[in-house]
């Protein structure tokens, strides 16, 4: 069955971007509708792809293979495995909601949508690439537009110079949007350099004939190589996944980024990092993984607890959400580190669940920020009176983030922690559950501070509830969150198919 | 023996005049000293059995390039700066040290290379002009053509670069002329 569906899904946003590029500057509506069209093609395509994935047959499906540099074995090889469908769907949902949430962007809107769509094409490409070099190229396509998106459309704020390293504050305006964009890009590029090195080591050791992931996975690398290369991949991709202590681009980056960019970045891009660690690092390097996994798991536990604790004393709404992302990405890495089917299922499910949840969060924060012109929680209060709908969705996002049963967040956290506990990592689990409890503290505190209490003060006279397209974004994200929480097998079953295929190489016992 | 003596004379001429080339204050003189070096080199070519090359050297270099150089000097200034700067005392020493180091190293390498002066295993047939011509126009025709193209490009490039455009930049000192 080759219907070129995957090419379509990946290319649709890029094509839409191309069309948008040729639209006249003033065509506001046309720009938005074309972008939305591109996003919807990806969304619907990914739903169809997920629905028609043959779980019984498992493995790679809808394989498309176009040679690019045959002499080096570089092929544009797209295929969908068990993980591909759910992650495509996540990306589709987020970009669709993201375009809707960006409807009111007024500054250089054409360029904005072009970059947004190009970025999404990159993300979609990563999830279905079966060729490591192409995987990496898509990865870069997804990462780089972020620089412009934050640097041009972002928001700045000042961070006072303190501490032993305040000399650095002289050189950069810390908290400035260009600073955030630059830090994010540079940190991710350093990570990319590590990945690149690792890719070439793998390629050469595998005979320098092909970048095909299946071929690379079938090669057995010697133990020392694996032990050296695995950390390169873990930290390289891990930087994007917010692995402690390489997470610091995330709070500043997310806080400075415009709404839809934060949504995409925290919602989808951070998942690329975790996906890369699992799909490339762990699957290709079993011995290296087994050697390093205690460290990976311990750092993940640190991430969960550290992110949550840091979030607790933030005063800026976006920072809270950003640190909560750092914390929740720890759950993904923790699940990955268990090396059990349940842990991996939970990890991938958490990618989707957290993606949607944090997308919803940032959409809401964007709405609040646009109306209130401040992100300082201390200044807000009583917003539920004038924006009840936003308050409802915010509460929903909070509940999912603290892992309430019936929302997607519960499923992934429960499965991951259960897997971690069951595989004997009691300390990690305790740290993780404590992190989830602290999440409950800070999200509810924020909700109370922003939405509850007597009506808003006179400073906020422009407050209003969500508007048409914003409703669209909120409803799509909120519904997905609840639907996945009530019936997680929608995604968990296909994810499990992928998990078993990939995990078989690491843990020989789990062959189906 | 006579060949060695001849080589010695030629080499001495070349080196001595080369030293004058780099030391002469007056540029016209430097150009003329270079001419002598080039002539000595041409003589060396002839001694090494490359008579055609010697001819080309004389024609092209001594005839063409030297003339160009003289014109170049005439268009611009004849002397280097009037007031010597601080670097002027450091620079000759530095240059001399570096040049001597280079010479020392390469010369040592040459002297230490064994079997450099042994006669080749089989006698070499002298290279005739016909051989040369065939080589150029048959074996290396492509390179030859490319070279001619390069020369053409260089000529056009030189003309374009040196062509006087509007009188402006010459007459009024621009911001760039610091």
């Amino acid at each position, binding site marked *: 069955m080759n219907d070129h569906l995957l090419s379509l899904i990946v290319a649709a946003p890029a094509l839409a971007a191309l069309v948008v590029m040729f639209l006249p500057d003033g065509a506001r509506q046309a720009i938005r509708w074309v972008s939305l069209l591109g996003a919807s093609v990806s969304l619907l395509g990914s739903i169809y792809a997920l629905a028609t994935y043959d779980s019984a047959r498992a493995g790679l499906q809808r394989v498309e293979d176009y040679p690019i540099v045959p002499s080096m074995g570089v092929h544009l090889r797209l295929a969908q495995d068990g993980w591909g469908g759910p992650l495509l769907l996540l990306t589709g949902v987020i970009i669709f909601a993201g375009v809707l949430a960006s409807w009111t962007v007024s500054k250089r809107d054409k360029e904005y949508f072009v970059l947004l769509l190009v970025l999404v094409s990159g993300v979609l490409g990563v999830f279905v690439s079966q060729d490591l070099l192409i995987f990496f190229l898509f990865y870069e396509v997804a990462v780089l537009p972020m620089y412009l998106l934050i640097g041009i459309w972002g928001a700045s704020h000042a961070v006072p110079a303190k501490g032993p390293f305040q000399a650095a504050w002289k050189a950069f305006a810390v908290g400035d949007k260009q600073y955030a964009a630059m830090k994010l890009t540079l940190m991710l590029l350093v990570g990319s350099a590590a990945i690149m090195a690792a890719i070439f080591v793998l390629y050469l050791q595998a005979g320098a004939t092909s970048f095909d992931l299946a071929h690379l996975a079938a090669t057995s690398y010697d133990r020392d190589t694996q032990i050296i290369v695995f950390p390169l991949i873990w930290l390289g991709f891990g930087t994007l996944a917010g692995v402690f202590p390489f997470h610091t681009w995330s709070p500043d980056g997310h806080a400075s980024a415009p709404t839809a960019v934060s949504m995409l970045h925290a919602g989808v891009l951070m998942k690329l990092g975790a996906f890369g660690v699992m799909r490339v690092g762990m699957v290709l390097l079993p011995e290296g993984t087994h050697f390093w996994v205690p460290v990976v798991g311990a750092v993940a536990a640190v991430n969960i607890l550290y992110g949550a604790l840091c979030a607790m004393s933030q005063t800026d709404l976006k920072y809270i959400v950003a640190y909560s992302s750092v914390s929740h990405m720890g759950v993904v890495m923790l699940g990955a580190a268990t090396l059990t089917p349940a842990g991996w299922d939970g990890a991938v499910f958490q990618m989707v669940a957290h993606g949607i949840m944090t997308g919803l969060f940032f959409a809401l924060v964007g709405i609040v920020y646009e109306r209130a012109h401040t992100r300082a929680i201390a200044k807000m209060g009583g917003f539920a009176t004038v924006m009840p709908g936003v308050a409802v969705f915010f509460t929903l996002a909070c509940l999912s983030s603290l892992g309430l049963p019936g929302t997607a967040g519960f499923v992934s956290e429960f499965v991951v922690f259960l897997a971690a506990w069951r595989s004997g990592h009691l300390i990690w689990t305790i740290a993780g559950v404590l992190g989830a409890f602290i999440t409950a503290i800070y999200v509810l505190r924020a909700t109370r501070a922003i939405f509850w209490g007597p009506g808003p003060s006179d400073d906020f006279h422009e407050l209003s509830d969500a508007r048409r397209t914003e409703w669209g974004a909120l409803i799509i994200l909120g519904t997905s969150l609840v639907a996945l929480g009530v019936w997680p097998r929608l995604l968990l079953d296909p994810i499990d198919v992928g998990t078993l295929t990939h995990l078989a190489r690491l843990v020989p016992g789990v062959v189906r | 023996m006579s060949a*060695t003596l001849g080589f010695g004379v030629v*080499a001495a001429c*070349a*080196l001595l005049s*080369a030293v004058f*080339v*780099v030391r002469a204050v007056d*540029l016209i003189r*430097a*150009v003329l000293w*270079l001419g002598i*070096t*080039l002539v000595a*080199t041409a003589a*060396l070519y002839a001694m*090494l059995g*490359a008579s*055609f*090359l010697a001819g080309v050297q004389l024609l*092209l*270099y001594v005839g063409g390039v030297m003339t*160009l*150089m003289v014109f*170049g000097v005439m*268009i*611009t*200034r004849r002397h*280097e*700066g009037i007031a010597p700067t601080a670097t002027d005392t450091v620079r000759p020493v530095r*240059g*001399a040290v*570096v*040049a001597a180091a*280079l*010479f020392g190293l390469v*010369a040592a390498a*040459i*002297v230490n290379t064994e079997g*450099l*002066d042994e006669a*080749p295993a089989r006698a*070499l047939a002298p290279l005739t002009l016909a051989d*040369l011509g065939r*080589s*150029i126009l048959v074996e*290396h025709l492509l390179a*030859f053509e490319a*070279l001619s193209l*390069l*020369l053409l490009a*260089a000529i056009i*490039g*030189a003309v374009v*670069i*040196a062509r*006087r455009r509007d009188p402006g930049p010459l007459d009024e*000192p621009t911001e*760039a*002329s*610091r």
Partner: protein
Amino acid sequence: MTLSHCLLLATALFSIGVYGLLTRRHAIAVLLSVELMANAANICFVAFSRFRGGSGQLFALFALALTVAEVAVGLALVILLYRSHRDTRIDLASEMKL
């Protein structure tokens, strides 16, 4: 007259050229030094051709042509330099500094 003699001579000429390159400030003088160095290289070609065979002469011929081209362009540049700076001392031209 042996190969090593020729090579030593070439080395000496080259080193003198380097000395000139490093010490002279007038653009044309620098050009002259470069000529010396090119000449030294040519001597090597011819000497190897004489004592070891091969197409060294051919190379020397081509190199000669290249040198001529270089001189033409170089002089043009010197003239341009003179026009823009009213001077031909290369250490005054520090536009390459960021």
